[in-house]
């Protein structure tokens, strides 16, 4: 009974902390969308526009170094455009100062994943929860499991809400 007056002192910081943390947890991942018009045009001609923050710089460099065999397709660009896109993607990559590094959790510094869906973070977020079974992909109209916006409709704007 004596302690009652002290209770708000304990509860208030906890409530404040919950208010700060809860929206972050509920909203899922936020990444900067691609803002460069050349990158936006060239990197969305065949597939959705992936935010640069979905892969580390070493992955982007590796992908951009072999556009003639881009996940099985020829996506060659002239040298100047290739260089421009590589610079943008590496400068805005998941391991750049300006990005949320959550996507790199569990990834060894020596690993160079070329697929976002090969990131330990991605696998933990999706496969353990059966979110990317063949049936789910078919229902969502996704052609492959890297087609983020089949489920995260604002993925190109860097908004990956849990659903």
């Amino acid at each position: 009974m004596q302690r009652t007056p002290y209770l708000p002192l304990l509860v208030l910081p906890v409530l404040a902390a919950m208010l700060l943390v809860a929206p972050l947890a509920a909203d899922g991942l936020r990444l900067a969308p691609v803002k460069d018009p050349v990158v936006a045009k060239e990197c969305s001609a065949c597939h959705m526009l992936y935010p640069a923050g979905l892969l580390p710089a070493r992955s982007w460099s590796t992908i951009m170094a072999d556009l003639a065999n881009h996940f099985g397709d020829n996506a060659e660009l002239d040298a100047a455009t290739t260089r421009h896109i590589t610079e943008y993607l590496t400068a805005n990559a998941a391991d750049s100062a300006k990005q949320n590094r959550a996507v790199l959790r569990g990834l060894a510094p020596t690993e160079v994943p070329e697929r976002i869906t090969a990131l330990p973070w991605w696998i933990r977020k999706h496969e353990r929860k059966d979110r990317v079974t063949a049936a789910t992909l078919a229902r969502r109209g996704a052609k492959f499991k890297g087609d983020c916006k089949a489920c995260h409709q604002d993925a190109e704007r860097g908004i990956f809400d849990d659903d």
Partner: protein
Amino acid sequence: MARTIGAAALLLASAVAASALSPAQRAVLDRYVAAAKSDPEYAGPSAERGRAFFFASHAGGKADTPACTVCHSSDLAAPGKTKAGKAIEPMAASIVPSRYSDPATVEKWFRRNCRDVLGRACSAAEKADVLAFLLSL
């Protein structure tokens, strides 16, 4: 004599087809025609040959893309679809008048798609034929 009349008819036909082209489209087509003329036998582009080439099933490329129509569909007035599921604007120039106006864009897609579909670069004559066909639609 027959050869001269044939050539004249061909010139006339291409002039008629070309009349609908924008100056930019004509310039893109002419670049490939000029390159193809390094062969002295070359008699100019043929929309009919272009049509056959576009719809043919080619060997030498990737197994899942033997023909242009795999992604562009057989109805060239309708959108196509990439393997990743994105829509491709219709190929018919009459439906999308901005098409085939930028030489770098046209060459970019020939370079990529010829490798995927045929497993080799297309010749200037083949590109001119395909362009003549698509520009006639």
